């Protein structure tokens, strides 16, 4: 859709028509129905939203959702930035191989990857047994069923979505600019902070927002690697719809998540447009 609109608004629309119809029939209309149920079930009115926004339990779930998404985004940025930088400056042959490995991990089934983390991280898992064997710990560390498990599992899944946009931006940066900074007497830290980071800003912003927005709606990984104390919004929706068959409440929660996501997406689009304009 993005490329269609940026490539010439009139001409792209025809090609995008099948995709637009598909989205309309299988996404927009059902979402509209769901939204309607959120204000009609079990009785007409806004009481689902009142419950959702008024209870401390749901407030905690909202907080968890944003907190986990925030932590995951921050750690993903910290890991992805050096990786993208290294990929940008290493010989092309090497970067192609590493790039392929990163993409390959994206194509492996999400559930399989999450179960693999469960096996690695549990108390009797490989990581705990190794740490014990080399004498670093006496008691196994609690790495699953909590925030640590969710964060590890989700950062791993989100990394490619951060590395790709960053790499695109960093590759465009002329290495001579950094040399110029050094010649002008900038320390490495200063060059990073005042030259590299501002230039990579658009990539950081778009990647960061993409990861944040995707994390907000994640279900499988938090459900399997996290405990119920870190419950996120997607899991609440699943409970309401699948277990309690309360479409009204599930719809309301889904709608709130959708609004937040669209809002953040709007911000992301702005950043994208600015980046394109430069």
């Amino acid at each position, binding site marked *: 859709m993005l490329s269609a609109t940026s490539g010439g608004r009139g001409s792209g629309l025809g090609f995008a028509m099948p995709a637009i119809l598909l989205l309309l029939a299988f996404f927009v209309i*059902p*979402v509209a129905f769901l939204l309607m149920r959120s204000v009609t079930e079990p009785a007409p009115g806004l009481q689902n939203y009142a419950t959702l926004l008024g209870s401390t339990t749901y407030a905690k779930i909202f907080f968890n959702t944003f907190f986990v998404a925030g932590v995951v985004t921050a750690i993903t940025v910290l890991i992805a930035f050096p990786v993208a930088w290294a990929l940008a400056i290493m010989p092309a042959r090497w970067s192609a191989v590493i790039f392929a490995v990163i993409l390959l991990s994206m194509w492996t089934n999400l559930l399989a990857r999450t179960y693999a983390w469960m096996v690695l991280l549990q*108390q009797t898992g490989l990581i705990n047994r190794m740490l014990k064997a080399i004498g670093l710990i006496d008691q196994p560390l609690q790495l699953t069923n909590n925030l640590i498990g969710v964060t590890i599992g989700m950062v791993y899944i989100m990394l490619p979505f951060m590395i790709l946009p960053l790499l695109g931006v960093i590759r465009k940066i002329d290495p001579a600019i950094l040399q110029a900074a050094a010649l002008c007497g900038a320390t490495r830290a200063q060059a990073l902070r005042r030259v590299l980071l501002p230039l990579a800003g658009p990539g950081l912003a778009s990647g960061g927002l993409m990861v944040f927005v995707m994390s907000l709606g994640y279900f499988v990984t938090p*459900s399997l690697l996290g405990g119920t104390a870190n419950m996120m919004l997607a899991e*609440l929706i699943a409970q309401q719809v699948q*277990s309690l068959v309360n*479409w009204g409440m599930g719809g309301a929660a889904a709608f709130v998540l959708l609004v937040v996501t669209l809002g953040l997406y709007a911000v992301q689009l702005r950043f994208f447009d600015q980046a394109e304009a430069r």
Partner: protein
Amino acid sequence: MKKTMFALAVASALTAHAAMAEDMVFTSWGGTTQDAQAANWAQPFTEKTGTGVMQDGPTDYGKIKAMVEAGAVTWDVVDAEFDWALQAGKQGLLEPLDFTVIDKAKLDPRFVSDYAVGSFYYSFVLGWNPANFSDAQPATLADLFDTTKFPGKRTFYKWSAPGVIEAALLADGVAPDALYPLDLDRAFAKLDTIKSDIIWWEGGAQSQQLLASGEAPIGFFWNGRLAALQADGMPVGISWDQNITAADALVVPKGTAHKDAAMKFIAEATSAEGQAAFAAATGYAPVNLGSADLMDPAVRATLPDAQTAVQVNADMAYWAEHRDEIGNRWYAWQAQ
């Protein structure tokens, strides 16, 4: 949301197909349980009637409601939890069962109602991994809640359903005949005492993994899953003391195009032979009172229906009535 749309798309595609072939669709929870249902119910049914049975799953109450409301029902017989089935019957989501086709005289009356008959019944039992407890072995539900005597993580069924709340009350000293109406305050207070030590299991396979790996050396399990671990040669401790029974139900979503076939399928599934063969394959108990005579006594001894003396029946009617109220409180408590 995406899931629902996908379900509706698949649903309409399936309707078209099913109508052409005149097959019916049976939906259950997947895994070894559904395999046994396919082999011991669907196959004989197809041989006798000529009607093919397509397997689908997993059971999803949200989907059933969506299908019935949209008038596009593609699941003809569904294996569901009994308390949900009673509630759904009252809400008009199910077809009344035809007891001129299904012979209810032979069925355990605990698991017969207008809209649902038992599919099989099972017990929640105390299970543990003996490798993790060198001295005394756990024996009672009170031990399950005693982290001093039996330290370590304990695992419980994650979803709101009959079983765990009853176990908490029994462990706290409530007499079995005084369980209902459930004292939720007391149950959650008891659960609070071990909350930080609980790992929740979402499905049977996960419960087995947690116990076998020692991640959670003690917990509250579906008896059939422990039987399967034992059959694989793993030493598993099982205590039947105050085993809590619950049942799955066979139901027919309202508006199915294959109502006659659905009723005949349920008749076959609940027959003495079908129930006996299924029980032997899964470790779950038959709901047909005539099945016991058809079974190997050694196998029978491992089933919940051999443990009625120490058994506590979860009150399905009570749960059907209070399902939403308990569920909302359960999930809110979990999230705190």
